[in-house]
């Protein structure tokens, strides 16, 4: 537990990395937003311009509206499922709980076009509705389409948090209410829900921020008047000297920070922690036959919605032509041969970039966790805070920051630093770092300090103790962190969208985005999407395996 030169060098190296690749780009964005275009002093004129431009104000409110409505609809989907699975004997519960992983497997932009084909004005569902009942529903019209797609993808964040909170309420809390004459939905509303509120808010604010920052989903649905897409469009169409892209970026950061701050404010004093003092699990109620039918109907409807993007994507990837008909006209493998042939560079790039980014994350995350938990270096907490601020930086903002900060920096042969593919890797790594860091913390916290002290007592130096004791014991946790980072990096798009300079440097998510823009490319785009989903699903499974195995190994050791 003392300082060694090696630790100090490590801390400084990490600080330098975070400084150059996180702090500098974000600071550059903020700086540009607050300086005059002609290179003058500090000014608010850009923000005034922002406020005077109808398009931006409209985009801002559209983003607020879409994010808020997504939270509302995601809650509508999540609430009944959380209530059903935590308070009733219900066979569908396992099914519902596994839904929690679906949004991790496929980000909403991947299924956007497929959903358009299923639920659009002339999509499968509306064609059938029109044929049978003579009406159509505008699921995918304008902003509604974004809300619909995002709600389906993100409601599990609310479901998982809310279910956990509901399960943690001491059962005497609800029994006391029953004893005093309350029951059913009224009991749920007056006691269970308020007590689970912190869990709900945690999930809801996460959904709000994610939707607010999303660039690709609105663009693929041809919705341009939202804030994050505007930042992207502004930079890519007008150029990196135009201050508006930076102003929008600052607004995006402010909204993310304000949401997190408001969440913390609401949660303050509400962390009731009523966990199971009275002992025993919750008494779950049996559903009456009629209620059971209703419950299954709700679960199946929601499950169908959740699976729709996946089903649509698979159909699209095998379709010859799919337009103005409920199902594709014919099926082919051509799209897969195409993406595995000449478009295989996307897949190769994705594996390379995600692998590098995940490695960087695990190394830096593990090092920060070690420095924070096992040393007394002054300022070590700052490393943690700095790495975690990446959570509040939208991908598009980071991309813009990289472009601006590194475009001026040239390599000896004259190419700007920002044009190199390694910059894409670094951006992805910074975006995923907070998650890898949490995994590393969890892994290290499970190792008793006495194991390290024993090694030192037997003559091992600090460095050798880390190498021979700490790292082997952390392997399982770090591996899980690596695989999760890898999987989510494989479908990262918003930062990538800005940074990709040529198709040959583009990862899969970018290729999918480009292909999906044209009707001719859709099939191939969907095939890429299916491959991406498979990569992520396999990684998630491997990560689970790694965690299980390391836990079992530790169980045997002790």
């Amino acid at each position, binding site marked *: 537990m003392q300082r060694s030169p090696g630790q100090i060098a490590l801390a400084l190296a990490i600080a330098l990395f975070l400084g150059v690749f996180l702090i500098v780009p974000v600071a550059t964005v903020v700086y540009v937003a607050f300086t005059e275009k002609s290179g003058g002093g500090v000014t608010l004129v850009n923000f005034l311009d922002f406020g005077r431009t109808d398009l931006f104000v409209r985009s801002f409110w559209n983003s607020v509206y879409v994010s808020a409505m997504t939270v509302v609809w995601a809650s509508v989907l999540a609430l009944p499922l959380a209530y059903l699975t935590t308070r009733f004997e219900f066979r569908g519960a396992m099914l519902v709980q596994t839904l929690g992983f679906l949004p991790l497997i496929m980000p909403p932009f991947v299924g956007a076009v497929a959903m358009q084909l299923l639920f659009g004005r002339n999509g499968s569902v509306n064609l059938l509705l029109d044929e049978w009942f003579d009406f159509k529903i505008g699921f995918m019209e304008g902003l509604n389409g974004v809300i619909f797609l995002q709600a389906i993808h993100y409601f599990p964040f609310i479901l998982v948090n809310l279910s956990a909170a509901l399960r943690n309420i001491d059962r*005497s*809390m609800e*029994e*006391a209410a029953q*004893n005093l*004459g309350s029951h059913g939905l009224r009991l749920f509303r007056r006691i269970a829900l*308020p007590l689970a509120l912190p869990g709900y808010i945690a999930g809801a604010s996460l959904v709000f921020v994610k939707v607010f920052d999303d660039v690709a989903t609105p663009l693929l649905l041809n919705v341009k008047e939202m804030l994050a897409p505007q930042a992207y469009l502004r930079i890519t169409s007008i150029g990196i000297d135009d201050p508006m892209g930076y102003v929008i970026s600052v607004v995006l950061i402010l909204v993310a920070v304000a949401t997190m701050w408001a969440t913390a404010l609401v949660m303050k004093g509400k962390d*009731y922690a009523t966990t199971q003092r*009275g002992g025993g699990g919750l008494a779950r109620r049996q559903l009456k036959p009629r209620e059971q039918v209703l419950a299954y109907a709700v679960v199946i409807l929601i499950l169908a919605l959740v699976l729709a993007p996946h089903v649509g994507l698979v159909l699209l990837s095998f379709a010859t032509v799919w337009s103005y008909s409920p199902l594709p006209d014919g099926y082919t493998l051509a799209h897969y041969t195409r993406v595995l042939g000449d478009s295989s560079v996307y897949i190769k790039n994705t594996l390379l970039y995600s692998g590098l980014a995940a490695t960087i994350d695990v190394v830096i995350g593990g090092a920060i966790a070690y420095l924070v938990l096992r040393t007394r270096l002054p300022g070590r907490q700052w490393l943690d805070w700095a790495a975690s601020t990446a959570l509040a930086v939208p991908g598009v903002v980071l991309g813009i920051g990289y472009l601006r900060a590194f475009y001026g920096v040239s390599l000896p042969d004259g190419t700007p630093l920002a044009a190199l593919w390694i910059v894409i890797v670094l951006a992805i790594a910074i975006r995923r770092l907070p998650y890898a860091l949490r995994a590393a913390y969890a892994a290290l916290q499970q190792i008793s300090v006495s194991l390290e002290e024993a090694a030192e007592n037997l003559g091992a130096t600090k460095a050798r103790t880390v190498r021979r004791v700490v790292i082997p014991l952390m392997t399982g946790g770090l591996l899980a962190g690596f695989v999760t980072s890898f999987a989510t990096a494989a479908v990262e798009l918003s930062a990538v969208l800005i940074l990709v300079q040529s198709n040959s440097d583009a990862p899969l998510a970018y290729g999918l985005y480009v292909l999906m823009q044209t009707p001719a490319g859709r099939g191939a785009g969907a095939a890429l999407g299916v491959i991406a989903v498979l990569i992520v699903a396999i990684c998630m499974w491997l990560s689970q395996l790694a965690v299980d195995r390391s836990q079992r190994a530790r169980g045997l050791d002790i």
Partner: protein
Amino acid sequence: MSKPARAVGIEITGVNLSYGATHVLKDVALSIRPGEFFAFLGPSGCGKTTLLRLIAGFAQAQTGKVLLDGHDVAPLPPWKRDVGMVFQSYALWPHMTVAKNVAFGLEERRLPRAEIERRVAQALELVGLSAFAERRPAQLSGGQQQRVAVARTIAIEPKVLLLDEPLSNLDAKMRVSVRRELRSLQQRLGLTTIFVTHDQEEANTICDRIAVMDAGTVQQVGTPMELYENPANLFVANFLGSANILDERCGVPIPAGKRLVFRPQHASLSVPESASLHGPVTHREFLGATVRYAVRIGDSEVLIETPFQSGSELRSVGDHVGVDLPPQRMLFLPA
């Protein structure tokens, strides 16, 4: 709180309850009189809390009946039973103020606003917490939280009051004062009350009658004195106060299948020659008012407590002593 119009009796007959393979309550039958302060006393896992939860409607028996005021409560869900329960953890809702907690049951009964306010004020007054109405439960001490839980329950004027180990989360000093408060409150309200505890002192000091439970069965029902003086079996004798238990090898004639049981303070030490029970002193503990000796008799060890008078001569470890036991203090209980 006005006195309830009429206190209510509880009849429990032939109750069997199992959770899977675990038989938690076995043929339980009890009769609790109107207005009585009654205790379920037993070690943890004896089924006393389950029996209480059965009365409140949080557990379902496979056989048997629970009659409240002569009516079978089996068809009634917990929220229709009017049985007030104070939970071991108090179960105060942290998101509501003290007043809101107390008002909850009244609101569920759709009482008029003014009536609710009046009864909340009255209930808080009764437990001496009027000044804390707008506090949150987390801002109160353990004893105050317990009083809020009681106020919340009696505000609905329940037919009976159920207390699940209400003193277990309080420190030793608080326990004594709170149990007195509970007793005087129960006396004022005249409310039939059941008190679940594993602590015989708590049960003895405040309850009219006690049902001693072990392994899912009721071992004996009686007043604290009856149970102490005339325990029905070895378990009850041991659970209420300490008891010496000897079998037929001790030297005193004992009926077949029985054991000789006596309390430490009922015996005295004498010379070994005159006593049928005798043996060496193995331990001596000075307790102030009394001196406790352990004497080995055959394979067993008995405890003898003798009053201490200054100047009296104490026996030493190793001394061979006789144990004098008046015949009327000898209990012969089934083994």
